[in-house]
């Protein structure tokens, strides 16, 4: 039986890719952020998960608003990155896991989540930055990744209540897969930030910390928020919290917080790194 052994929340902003490409991890600006990562890396290297299910949002690489899927997922054996327009380095291919992906797709659609199913899907910084943070030097080729992409760009977008339920449905799907696989779920993006408008630069530290607390102990309570509430409390792009909520949904067991590092700002955002064990 496949088993979800834990979950991780992490930021995925492009500025991290640039900082890593330019070796800025130890500079005063970046150190408090990067110093949070070794315990999570150690845990991953100890646990050796076979598969990472990674919730992210596409920022205009694979998808455009000509056709914008609400929920999309990859079912390929390999994924590619490419030029995103602003010069962050493109990276080697990411390994996929076709069989489990299709199993999840079948299970989700049966469960009422009508996914867009992708056999080719260019993956952007939303997916690649977290992988490189966990396995620096792009050393993640041994891990199989299943990308799950949530629309966080164009309203209407799925609400926290729905993304939590999506995560739970993915949790059930994984648990019903016969092969013995160790799975870790990443919820990437967030936390509070606003890039656009005169309100640009908005960060809400207290709200971010409250969300991290609730993700551990009471994820249901986050479903009281609408996406507009998230915009009000966390800024226009705080809707990316939906990815963290989806991750938490997938952890169906007893959850223990093993590590946390909140730091703000990195670039324009609040960054919440958290490692949760699922037993």
């Amino acid at each position, binding site marked *: 039986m496949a088993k979800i052994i834990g979950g991780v929340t992490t930021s995925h902003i492009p*500025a991290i890719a640039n900082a890593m490409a330019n070796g800025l991890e130890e500079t005063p600006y970046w150190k408090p952020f990067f110093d949070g990562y070794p315990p999570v890396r150690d845990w991953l290297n100890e646990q050796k998960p076979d598969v990472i299910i990674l919730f992210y949002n596409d920022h205009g690489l694979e998808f*455009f*608003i000509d056709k914008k899927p609400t929920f999309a997922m990859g079912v390929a054996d390999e994924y590619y990155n490419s030029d995103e327009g602003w010069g962050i380095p493109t990276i080697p291919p990411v390994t996929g896991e076709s069989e489990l992906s299709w199993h999840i797709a079948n299970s989700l659609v049966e469960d009422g989540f009508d996914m867009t199913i992708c056999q080719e899907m260019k993956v952007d910084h939303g997916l690649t930055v977290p992988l490189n943070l966990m396995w620096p030097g792009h050393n993640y080729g041994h891990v199989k990744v299943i990308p799950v992409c949530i629309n966080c*760009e164009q309203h209407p977008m799925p609400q926290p209540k729905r993304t939590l339920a999506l995560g739970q449905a993915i949790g059930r799907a994984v648990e019903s897969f016969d092969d013995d696989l160790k799975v870790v779920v990443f919820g990437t993006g967030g936390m509070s930030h606003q890039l656009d408008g005169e309100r640009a630069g908005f960060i*809400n*530290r207290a709200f971010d910390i409250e969300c991290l607390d609730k993700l551990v102990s009471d994820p249901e309570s986050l479903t009281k928020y609408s996406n507009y509430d998230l915009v009000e409390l966390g800024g*226009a792009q705080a809707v990316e919290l939906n990815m963290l909520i989806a991750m938490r949904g997938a952890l169906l067991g007893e959850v223990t917080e093993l590590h946390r590092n909140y730091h703000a700002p990195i*670039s324009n955002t609040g960054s919440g790194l958290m490692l949760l064990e699922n037993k």
Partner: protein
Amino acid sequence: MATNEKREFPGTYLFNGEMAKKGYGLNKMCFSFNNQEARDEFNADPEAYCDKYKLTDVQKQAIKDKDIIALLKEGGSIYYLAKFAGLLKLNMQDIGALQTGMSVDEFKAMLEKNGRGEV
């Protein structure tokens, strides 16, 4: 739940159906900046490139003025506008400063202050 709710947030332009329709040509142009050839073509003749994507006069002017707020009001989506910003070699703090009327240093200082939770 607030899916169909009309709610306004000061200094915030929610990218919804109305904006997505209005900004379609503008966003499509900025989406094209994923490709180097497109960026080169824009740089060679911005005006002609805007026409290729049938930008409205207001959108063209906003592109010319690098006026991010005007681009948002014209239906620009931040993820595609970010590619335009990248083409101009501006980062998110530069963009933040442009939108808030602060200097880049002032904007960065505000981020630090927000990050510490000093509201």
